[in-house]
Structure formats: structure tokens, C-alpha cells
């Protein structure tokens, strides 16, 4: 036919992981719209961590990483996918002092996926024990703050301890999100996928 080169189809398995990554990126973007701006200089309360949790648990380090990378790239390209419908490379760097958290989500997903699956091709979520899930997601939260807080200090010139103090109240909230995420997995709502 009129094709000039042979068509090199993406194999069906890859397409399956790819579309899951795409949807989790879209889900993270949608969850960012539910971020609640807090008064004063406080970063927004945000549901984005759920995107990171599910991407890590469902997709593993490779495709989970692709999901969050897509999320960040689409934001850089101008889609209003960050907290409060923000976008742009400038926002990824600065944010509301929160740019580092966006990068933290990406690295956190890779870490969570690596701990949960211990290989690049993910296992079924149903095969992951609760302690492994909890460990993986806790590590993801640690990574998010380990990148987000120093970054915040870099951007705002606040001392590290002051930035940490500002963010500390969010930690218990993020742990609640972690619990909800595991409950959703245990409820079987993600299995069979």
C-alpha cells in the first residue's frame, strides 16, 4: 500500500501499560484540581499524592515513573494540571514554594514502585502484602518531603528547619491518605487490572 516504511506496531502489552500510565497521569491532574488553597503562606492541601501512590502500586517503577513524568511534562507544556490550575516550567521550579513536591511525586513513585514490585514489570496489586504496600508508600512520602522541603528552602530562602516546620503539619494528613490508598487496594477496587 501507500506506506513508505514498514509499520512497527507497539506491542499489545506495552500499549496496555502505556495507557494505564496515561490514565494515572490524567488522574493525578484531576486530583490536583481538588487541591484546597490554605490561607497565608501555606502550600495547598492536595490529593496529588494519591496519583503517586496508585501509580507506584499499580504500575511499578518504570511505568509509574512514566505516568508522573507525563504529568509533569504536560504541566510544563501548559495544561493547567498543577494545584489550583497552575502550569508552566516556572511553576515546576517555584510553585508556591512547592515545585520540589512535584519533582518529589515523580521520584516518590519510582521509589514506591521499586519497593513494592522489586522489578520493572509490575506484579498484580493483589499479590502485594499490606506491610509491603505500607512500606513502599511511606518511602514515597519520605522522598516527597526529602526533595520538597530542601527545594522549598532553596526557592524561598527560608532556613531548612523553618521550611520543615512549615511542612510538618501536612505529614499526618499524608499518612491518612496513605491509609485510604491501601484501603482502596484492599477493597479490591484496583484488582483484576
Amino acid at each position, binding site marked *: *500500500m*501507500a*506506506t*513508505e*516504511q*514498514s*509499520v512497527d*506496531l507497539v506491542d499489545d502489552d506495552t500499549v496496555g501499560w502505556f495507557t494505564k500510565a496515561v490514565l494515572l497521569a490524567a488522574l493525578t491532574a484531576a486530583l490536583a484540581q481538588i487541591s484546597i488553597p490554605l490561607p497565608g503562606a501555606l502550600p495547598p492541601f492536595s490529593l496529588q499524592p494519591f496519583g503517586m501512590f496508585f501509580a507506584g502500586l499499580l504500575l511499578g517503577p518504570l511505568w509509574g515513573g512514566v505516568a508522573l513524568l507525563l504529568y509533569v511534562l504536560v504541566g510544563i507544556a501548559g495544561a493547567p494540571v498543577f494545584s489550583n490550575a497552575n502550569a508552566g516550567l516556572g511553576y515546576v521550579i517555584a510553585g508556591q514554594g512547592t515545585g520540589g513536591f512535584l519533582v518529589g511525586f515523580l521520584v516518590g513513585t519510582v521509589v514506591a514502585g521499586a519497593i513494592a514490585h522489586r522489578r520493572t514489570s509490575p506484579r498484580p496489586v493483589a499479590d502485594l502484602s499490606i506491610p509491603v504496600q505500607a512500606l513502599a508508600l511511606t518511602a514515597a512520602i519520605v522522598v516527597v518531603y526529602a526533595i520538597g522541603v530542601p527545594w522549598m528552602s532553596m526557592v524561598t530562602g527560608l532556613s531548612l528547619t523553618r521550611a520543615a516546620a512549615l511542612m510538618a503539619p501536612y505529614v499526618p494528613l499524608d499518612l491518612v491518605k496513605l491509609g485510604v490508598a491501601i484501603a482502596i487496594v484492599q477493597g479490591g477496587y484496583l484488582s483484576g487490572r
Partner: protein
Amino acid sequence: MIAVRDLRYQYGAVTVLDGVTLSIPDGQYCLLVGPNGCGKTTLVRHLNALLTPDAGTVTVDGTDVTDDPVVARTQIGMVFQHPRDQFVAATVGADVAFGPENLGLDRDEIDRRVTAALDAVDLDGARERRIDALSGGEQARVAIAGALAMEPDYLVLDEPLVGLDWPARESVLDHLDALAADGTGIIVVTHDLRDLHERADRLVALHEGQVALDVPPAEALDSLPDLGIRDPRC
């Protein structure tokens, strides 16, 4: 030619296709009918290697589609039962261009095909419109244009007329006639044979996982009610 030989398929423990044999020569206009859940969608998905047979084979021009899906997917254009499931881009033009881009055609050729396909479904002006802001009928036509732009040898349409108003329905049917006249093979899945039974060359009815009827439409009409299909004349 598309040849389906002794095709079997089950979802879990439920057998849906239980030995379907069928061959569709180039350029034929064929209707596929049968009650809800009889396996029409399941069958047409095999033609495009979207499902893998449990037993039996599907070949397109001699190539087994499971071994080498490229031939099937480049030569058979598929319009899904739910058009909304089939879009991969945000705007009409980008979506219709998606198939040709993946064929690796050059930009001018892609442009020519997109223009021709949108023209064919009366959506010339809609290239920059967002798909999600279109009405149901317009979406159905974009889905058809996406398949046309591949310039496939065969076009498989799974209930393409559902939800279309009368003028839109007529326009799609006329376009299919034109394609058939140009030698494109057409397979239409439908519950509503009105207008179609006079246009098609052949009617295939599925029943209990097998081909229960395979004749020119005119000969089928009297036996349709026994298969749970409405006679379009009344």
C-alpha cells in the same frame, strides 16, 4: 479477502464464539446481525486482532492476524460500537490524522487524507473543533472519518447508526454506498435493518456462537423473526 475459520472464543468460562466460519471477499457489503450478547462485537474485534482466538484462525489476504497484526490493522478500518471509546486526540483534525501518522506517511499525504475523510462525512469545517463539544451524531461521523483516513480495504462498523438523527443517518448510509461502489469491503453490525437490507450484498446472522444464516438480505427477511431479529419491512 477476510477468512474466519472455525473461530472459538470464550470470556472466562462462557463460550461466545463456538466455531464461526466465514469468508468475506474484497468489496463485499455485508450485514452482521443477531440478538444482544450473541457475539457480534466479539467477532469483529477478532478481525482486527484486538482479541486472540482460543481456537481457529482469522486471515486477511492470507496473513494470520494473530501472527502479524500489521496487515489487519492497516487494511481494516474499525468503527467502534461506542464512538467515544475510539478517540485518541482532543480535536477532530488531530484525531483523524492519528491513523495516517502511524502509517508513516508524509505530511502532505496525511493532510490530503484528513481533508478527504472529513469531506466525506460532511465535517469539512470542523477540523479544529474539540471532539468532546460535538453532538452525538457528529462524534459518530468523526469516528467514521478516522477509519476512512486509513484508506483501508475493508471497513468494519459496529452499530454506527445508533443515536444518529435521520439526516445524519442518511448521509452516513450514502457515504457507505459510495465507498462500496469504489470497491471497499464493508461490514455493518446492526439491530435495525431498515435502509440497509436493500443496500447490502449479504446478511450474516449469529446464533449461539455460530453462523445461523448467510444469504443475500432479501432471502433472509422471512426467517429473521425466528432468530430474534426484526423484519425491516414492518
